[in-house]
């Protein structure tokens, strides 16, 4: 069923050449990565059997996570992505976010080695094969020095447009421990992408581990909420004003309530964080961005515009499909009820403003 509003959106999308800010390539297996390891690590990952690295949050086996029609399509790798997504949606760019279990590895050197191999693999097997593809650098947040080296290594390959972290890692991302990474990212024009997922360094809720995957997925929002609080309170937003922070697969509708509460708290508690000179809502609107799938919208599409108004920032939202995850049906990637006047910005302009490296030639 294609209703007219959706059809109109779709044609607008393909005319504009939309930029899809959250696309997931198939997670690489050891056999995919092996050519990209040096001899030492080749031997280590083989003898120690480091193969399938998949987060407990996102098991690939979980059927409801994936769209059946996309899964069933023929081909693999780039070819399949073209057939399912790039061509039918008429995308100008798609940003690949490779979310794997590397974030959960403890050994800081092994994590760095797997990140290096993953990034080289992304470059060779994806970016080199379709000019529409862009990617996020997978970084070993367990090892900031190695993360900075990885940023430097790819600084000249403009197809990598952002660096990627999980929303629940060892510590909140605002902590000064991570600042050298942000310093390097900002210097080279990368934005910071924070994707759903937990390294399970601690329970995903204050009350412990949750029984069900459904519950676990719901709780991702809390990881994001904590990160927004951390970026604000620790002063990351002021310290790195040119680095946009993109919350990916975070849901959207929770943010206004958080801005209200944090701004109110800030009025009472600002002497604690004297470097936060503006209300958190202003900082968040200026520098935090969110992808639109999932949106966590109310069932009545008429209400969606109210949420956009609560957000009060027309440049905060970035178009995404979250391919190949099952977030919407058919081509209805733009949430029902999304105001028409903003579609252009959503699909294209906001992304260009978020990712300084995007327009430049590879």
């Amino acid at each position, binding site marked *: 069923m294609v209703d007219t509003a959706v059809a109109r959106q779709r044609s607008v999308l393909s005319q504009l050449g939309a930029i899809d800010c959250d696309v997931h390539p198939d997670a690489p297996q050891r056999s995919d990565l092996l050519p990209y390891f040096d001899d030492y690590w080749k031997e280590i990952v083989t003898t120690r059997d480091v193969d399938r690295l998949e987060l407990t949050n996102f098991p690939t086996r*979980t059927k*409801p996570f994936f769209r059946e029609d996309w899964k069933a399509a023929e081909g693999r790798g780039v070819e399949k992505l073209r057939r399912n997504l790039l061509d039918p949606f008429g995308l100008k760019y798609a940003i690949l976010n490779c979310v794997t279990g590397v974030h959960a590895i403890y050994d800081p050197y092994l994590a760095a080695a797997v990140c290096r191999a993953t990034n080289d693999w992304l470059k060779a097997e994806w970016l080199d094969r379709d000019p529409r593809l862009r990617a996020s650098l997978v970084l070993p947040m367990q090892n900031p020095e190695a993360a900075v080296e990885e940023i430097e290594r790819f600084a000249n390959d403009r197809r990598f447009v952002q660096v990627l972290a999980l*929303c*629940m*890692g*060892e*510590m*909140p991302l*605002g*902590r000064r421990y991570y600042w050298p990474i942000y310093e390097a990212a900002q210097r080279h024009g990368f934005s910071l992408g924070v994707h759903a997922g*937990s390294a399970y*360094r*601690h*329970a*995903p*809720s*204050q*009350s*412990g581990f949750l*029984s*069900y995957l*459904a*519950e676990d*997925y*719901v709780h991702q*929002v*809390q*990881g994001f*909420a*904590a990160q927004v*609080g*951390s970026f604000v*309170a*620790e002063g990351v937003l002021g310290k790195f004003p040119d680095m946009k922070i993109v919350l990916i697969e975070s*849901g959207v*509708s*929770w943010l*206004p*309530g*958080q801005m*209200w*509460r944090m*701004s*109110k*708290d*800030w009025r*009472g*508690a*600002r002497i*604690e*964080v004297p470097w936060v000179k503006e209300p958190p809502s202003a900082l968040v609107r200026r520098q935090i961005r969110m992808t639109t799938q999932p949106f*966590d919208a*109310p*069932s009545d599409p008429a*209400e969606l515009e*109210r*949420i956009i*108004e*609560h957000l009060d920032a027309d440049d905060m939202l970035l178009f995404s499909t979250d391919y190949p995850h*099952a977030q919407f049906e058919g081509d209805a990637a733009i949430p029902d009820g999304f105001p028409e006047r903003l579609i252009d910005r959503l699909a294209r302009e906001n992304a260009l403003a978020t990712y300084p490296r995007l327009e430049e030639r590879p």
Partner: protein
Amino acid sequence: MTETGTLERPVETKAKYNLIDCDIHPSMKTPAEIQPYLSQRWRDHLATYGGHTRQGLSETLSHPRMVPEVSRVDSWPPSGGPPGSDLPFLREQHLDNLGIDIGVLVPLRFNASGQRHPDFAIAIATAINDWQVGKFLDPEPRLRGSIIATQEDPANAVAEINRRASDKRFVQVLLPPRSIEPLGKRRHWPIFEAAVRHSLPLSLHVGGVGGHQATGAGWPSYYLEEHHSQVQTMQAVIASLIFEGVFEHFPELKISFVEGGFSWVPSFGWRMDKAWQTMRDEVPHVKRPPSGYLRQNVWFTTQPMEEPNPAKNLADTLRWIGTDRLMFSTDYPHWDFDDPRFAFKVPLTAIEKAAIFAGNAVNFYGLN
């Protein structure tokens, strides 16, 4: 969010009650005030070992607050002692001054459920309950008490609930949202069963020491963040209750969430609904969209009121949650106190006002 729950009753404006405050924090002149309510064995224990909870500091919260005793500067009683410790002053400044008909006590000191020593936890819970009666409920008929129960030790929590239930001045069972395991887990179900049996609602006031990091992302540095993380705690508790099937099993259970705000509730409901639709075969015991349980079993107190800019955006939020779900609270004497005269910066109809300021609480507590 369309279903009408079985626990909802038409809102009646009771002339009897115009203002009910669901969150007043009583305190002690000195910590020694607890002693008459403890046996010698536990007095000795307290003196020797102090509190032993799942956090780094033994006498103090890990994130220092913004004002002494987290309290309004003007709430220190002229007779001495900390805010909330002097009944005549509490009457004068709070109950009389604001015209509060019923005030519900939420005692936070000593943190019974957070105590690691299981027997000391029981002793403290019982002592605090006796103290509420002795110091507040006996001399002041407008005040109501909360039954402190040891959440980590469900059998003894049930025993304490059974012991107090006949004293109708206790209007709810108080549990901390931060716990060792999510609240919905089956080991806690005997507590729910006892609450339903005695027609006592449960109330979760922000706080608790469960031994987990304050956010799924780790420990925040600042109170500014920690204060916000309380919202996430409340979300975790609600999701746990729903997905573990608690409301399906105990459809009569009523729960209020106190001091966690409420503007996050609509989007959280939407998110839960969506996840449930996608993955309901994982949780076949959850029969209805999660937001349906929110509409039926869950209430929220209003303080700290979120303050959107522009203020009118709050009207949407109120509509999405339902004004029948909200109960007014002041959080007296804490620093982020909401004054009933100024808390709502959006216009409310007379009916909405009556419901939020008193009617909903009458229904929730069964005050008729």
